[in-house]
């Protein structure tokens, strides 16, 4: 798991988002914009995405880290760091 490439990680994240929001157009998403608002991901959806990511990657995100997940790049950075650590 630890040596997942960033691209693979990105795909995993996108898969998890699409599972909740199948119509989401992620390619059109500016990388530094808060993705939840742009993709209309409410707190329940967000929770489901975190559950999904935990299942796929084994990373459990504590609530105190939520602020690091505001942008898609931030989320991927965060997961990469957690997987490496």
């Amino acid at each position, binding site marked *: 798991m630890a040596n997942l490439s960033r691209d693979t990680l990105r795909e995993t994240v996108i*898969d998890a988002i*699409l*599972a909740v*929001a*199948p*119509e*989401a*157009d992620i390619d059109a998403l500016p990388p530094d914009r*808060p993705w*939840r*608002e742009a993709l*209309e*991901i*409410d*707190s*329940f959806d*967000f*929770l489901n995405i*975190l*559950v999904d990511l*935990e299942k796929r990657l084994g990373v*459990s*995100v*504590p*609530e*105190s880290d939520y602020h690091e997940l505001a942008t898609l790049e931030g989320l991927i950075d965060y997961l990469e760091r957690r997987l490496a650590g």
Partner: protein
Amino acid sequence: MSEFRMPSLGADMESGTLVEWNIRPGERVERGQIVCVVETQKGAIDVEIWEAGTVERLVAEEGQKVPVGEVLAVILGDGEKDEGGKAEDDGRETPAERPTPEASQAPSPRAPDLSPPPTTATPDVASSGVRLRISPAARRRAAELGLDPAGVNSSGIDGSITLEDIERAAQAAQGGQSTRAVATTDAHAAMRQAIATAMARSKREIPHYYLGNTLCVEPALAWLETHNAERPVTERLIFPVLQLRAVALALEAVPELNGWFVDDAFQPAEGVHLGVAIALRGGGLVAPALHDADRLAPDVMMAALRDLLTRARKDRLRSSELTAAGLTVTNLGDLGVESVQGVIYPPQVALVGFGRIAERPWVRDGQVVAARCLHASLAADHRVTDGALGARFLTRLTDLLTEPERLWPT
């Protein structure tokens, strides 16, 4: 003898199509049991019955369109068979008591039941009310995926939908093109129409007044973080649970906002059942009721909300959930808006709206600090309440969200 009638599942519902009976004459029904499926403009609804008894006869047939209030079935209530007079109304004799197996005294040796265990079936009805030609395996898979099989392209024998068709549709949906959205275009058009009717009626008939308040949610968020800190993701609460709880408790203080305006009079609700406005992906809106929101412990409330959200998105709501709410809560904060000036869902008399949580300058102990804040609003029916009552409610709501330890006092 009582009559089970086509329920009114919304102010705008005129009729429904009976899709499927789950009961048969002679069967016993319990209060709260889902007895039939009714197709409405809002999709297929599982309809519950509110009286226990025995099914005397089914009046409506599957596939029949029945106006609201018309008789669907006749139920023999518990103990009614003793009241001989009642049966005279329809000129028929009181049905004789059915012999029960227990009544037989003689030992009746029965062969052990060697038949295989019954398999459970899932409803298999397209939104048009016509039976879908779909394989059993495909039907089961569609249910697992929460996918409406109606409208899925079929490739199987005799034009049937196969497992592969369902998988393909599910993949297409995941790939960005929502099969569900395509498949349910008609249903969504109907839903749009229903929303249009209800909202037009609301704006036409209800004299709204609006109140708003910005409040600091740092204490509430701290409470939530503490609560969630040691919990796995699956057991965490989300902020809306706190919001709903606060609304429920505030309603206890101002019950005049919890109920319906019917026949030119306010009719208070029994119990605090909050309508939760849920935007459906692909368009549309439903607001099913979260029952007894004033009495649920945090985890129980979260579970109830999770169940409601999941089923709403799978189009598997129950009839009571569509009619029980005495007030609706809408939360558009996740969509980035600051504040909501809501439209009341008739015949309800108020609607609470929440905007997004964002950092703002906030004065604490005489100092301006950055704090996470939230705008809460109330839209209320001036025929039932005045601004003073509305203000009392909003103040109470603000207090509760500002002092979260009061939400579930120990």
